């Protein structure tokens, strides 16, 4: 008993000695472990959450999805939307003490475009060149008009890294990232934690009230919540919808949610290889019938406990880009049956590929029984994710359940999936008129004009249905009551500016 006694006493003494230096430390539970921590190379969603604290971008996104200044204070498009000039913030330092200026921006953008390992190439594909036109001003010259560039610069492609560190570390930058955000990198233990501490020279340091933040990947949602309840975490992302009610009732916890900018959908194989050659891929009336036979509100209520919203477009009904003239269709089994008959069928067999997670499986089982009433015999093929992705790309599917995490600009939710040569057009749908509208929308700096184009394309897509949109999930965060000032954003990021923690 004696040594334990001594140990306890020592620990207690240590705790009291450490107490006076009251520092705010936030522990955040993430759903996955981020991949490599280099904005040029990374590709995971959770990685972006960490960057939000570590790497400032040229521009940021406000909770109502407007582009707002961050490292760039103002910007201007040329009238033909082929040139973008940005004025940069002065007096900003990177974590290694080097100064932020136009040269650093040029170096980072060029790194994103040229580093062989870069995953940012397609995001910056429209950029012809980028140059410094003064100490604190840069100019992007584009190959073709592309107003979506601004939205790209609000994410990883626009995260400016220390040119010195990038030069020294090259492709290994992720082992010790050096950016210009509110927190700097301290250490990372693979699959265990990522630790950041407050950067004392941050340009907006008066708005940062947290001294240290630790991200812990905990994949199991039940365990993540248990850790929050036990006090080992202060905040968690992506709370399971099934736990929403119990968190709302818990007086010790905050519940915050917002509809996200992505979508849940079913991809139809329209022209991707031999398996597209079936009635469902060829006859749009069958796809319309399928869509009509689904009760989207019921899916939301049953699977997502009312935390998601029903949808029928690439953007949620809460988005300014949503076409209000095409509301979410109510379920209409009779009309669905009529469409199937018109197409010359009684019963239609369909194979539906589903990712092998319980939520997706449950959702698709409900869809299976809903469309059965209209005349579809759906067989569900449960597939592990990497395989599903592979099958979908190669066209070895008939109907595939797939999600998109969403982009700020509407273009990012539609162009590459629907346009003829689109990089991730797995349905291989191709319609010259839609392409024309989507490209025109890219070229206009006037949001009203862009909206018209997207609305017009939306009408055609709603008729052809290469992608059957089902709805939009919510990002749900739970945190201790002591965490204040956090503003939920539809992009799912955790912005720590303004967040206070009184633990």
């Amino acid at each position, binding site marked *: 008993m004696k040594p334990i006694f001594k140990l306890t006493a020592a620990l207690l003494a240590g705790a009291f000695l450490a107490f006076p230096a009251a520092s705010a430390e936030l522990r955040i539970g993430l759903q996955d472990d981020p991949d490599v921590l280099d904005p040029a*190379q990374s590709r995971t969603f959770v990685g972006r959450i960490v960057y939000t604290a570590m790497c400032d971008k040229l521009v940021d996104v406000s909770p109502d999805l407007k582009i707002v200044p961050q490292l760039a204070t103002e910007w201007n498009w040329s009238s033909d939307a082929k040139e973008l000039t940005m004025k940069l913030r002065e007096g900003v330092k990177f974590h290694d003490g080097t100064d932020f200026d136009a040269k650093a921006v040029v170096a980072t953008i060029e790194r994103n475009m040229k580093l062989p390992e870069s*995953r940012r190439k397609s995001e910056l594909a429209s950029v012809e060149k980028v140059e410094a036109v003064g100490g604190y001003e840069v100019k992007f010259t584009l190959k073709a008009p592309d107003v979506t560039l601004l939205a790209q610069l609000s994410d990883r492609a626009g995260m400016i890294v220390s040119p010195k560190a990038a030069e020294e570390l090259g492709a290994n930058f992720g082992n010790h990232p050096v950016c210009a955000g509110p927190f700097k990198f301290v250490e990372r233990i693979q699959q265990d934690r990522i630790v950041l501490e407050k950067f004392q020279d941050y340009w907006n340091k008066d708005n940062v009230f947290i001294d240290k933040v630790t991200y812990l990947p905990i994949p199991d949602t039940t365990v993540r919540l248990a850790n929050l309840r036990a006090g080992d975490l202060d905040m968690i992302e992506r709370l399971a919808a099934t736990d929403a009610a119990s968190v709302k009732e818990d007086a010790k916890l905050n519940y915050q949610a917002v509809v996200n900018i992505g979508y849940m959908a079913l991809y139809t194989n329209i022209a991707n290889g031999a398996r597209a050659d079936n009635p469902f891929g060829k006859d749009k009336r069958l796809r319309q019938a399928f869509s009509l036979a689904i009760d989207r509100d019921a899916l939301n209520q049953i699977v997502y406990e009312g935390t998601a919203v029903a949808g029928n477009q690439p953007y949620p009904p809460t988005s300014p880009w949503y076409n209000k003239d095409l509301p979410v269709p109510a379920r209409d089994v009779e009309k669905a049956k009529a469409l199937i008959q018109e197409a010359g069928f009684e019963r239609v067999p369909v194979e539906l590929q589903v990712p092998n997670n319980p939520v997706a499986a449950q959702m698709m089982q409900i869809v299976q029984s809903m469309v059965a009433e209209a005349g579809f015999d759906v067989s569900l093929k449960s597939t592990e994710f990497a395989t599903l992705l*592979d099958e979908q790309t190669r066209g070895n599917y008939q109907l595939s359940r797939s999600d998109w995490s969403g982009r700020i600009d509407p273009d990012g939710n539609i162009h590459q999936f629907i346009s003829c040569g689109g990089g991730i057009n797995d349905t291989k749908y191709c319609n010259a008129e839609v392409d024309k509208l989507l490209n025109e929308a890219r070229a206009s700096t006037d949001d009203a004009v862009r909206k018209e184009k997207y609305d017009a394309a939306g009408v055609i897509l709603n008729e052809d249905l290469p992608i059957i949109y089902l709805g939009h999930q919510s990002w749900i965060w739970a945190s201790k009551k002591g965490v204040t000032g956090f503003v939920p954003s539809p992009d799912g990021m955790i912005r720590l500016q303004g967040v206070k923690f009184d633990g």
Partner: protein
Amino acid sequence: MPVYIGKRLLVAIPTLLIISIFVFSLQKLLPGDPILAMAGEERDPATIEFLREKYHLNDPVPVQYVHWLGGIVTGDFGISLRTNQPVLELVMQKLPVTIQLAVMAMIISLMIGIPMGILAAVKKNTVLDYIANIVALSGLSVPNFWLGIMLILLVSVNLGWLPASGYESIFVDPVRSIQTMIMPAFVLATALAAQVMRHTRSAMLGVLSADYIRTARAKGLSPREVILSHSFRNALLPVVTLTALLFGELLAGAVLTEQIFTIPGFGKLTVDAVFNRDYAVVQGVVLCTAVGFILMNLLADVLYVLLNPRLRATL
């Protein structure tokens, strides 16, 4: 003895070769493309082509294998596709975690299993024996993930005695390290203890009915001496073998337990690597695990000889 150990180690080399070929080819049979999984949501064709070249995925499989094996011989286990870290570094990062978890689980299971096994054997067919059997059977039957979550809810959430999950290196903060590991080690130990208990019990039963035990009793030795000094030492042999083999298994990582308690060990590393088709990592981990298993087997045999002098003549 050194000659014996040397011989055994030499025999291990072809075994490892066969294992590596097996793992390598099985992985290639998996559907799914690692490059697609890592190219990002946009799947840029130029990036995909670059990555294929970089990781030699355009070469025929045998060429890839020879390339990989050449690296291993020179101590280069390749680079993780997902995090760009050298595989050897990843393995070395996880190995202490996995070993610590395995050692703690083994200690707990021996501390439960051996006394229970002896007790059950000595008090054969009494209430104590039945209770020991029921406890062992329950330990074996309760699923790890369920027990893990229940323990977290009870011990961490309701009672607040231990951290719910996480990991701390034993060299950085030994107290916290033990605190975070004790629950997962206990969860793993429940199933192991059952096996240790059953083996101890049957070995003890065999020994207790032997003639020399009757002699020992007849010459008036105390029951304590008869059981611990005369019976247990002889009954120990099968238990030692079992322990070494179980320990070897533990080195492969405990996927579910690690996942629930978010312990960054081999199990989690392997599963994440398989899901991401991170070939180099899977191969590296399997190879290390195989080496560990072979060493444990060897250790069991050596201990056997040390514990049982009669076997020394056979060397």
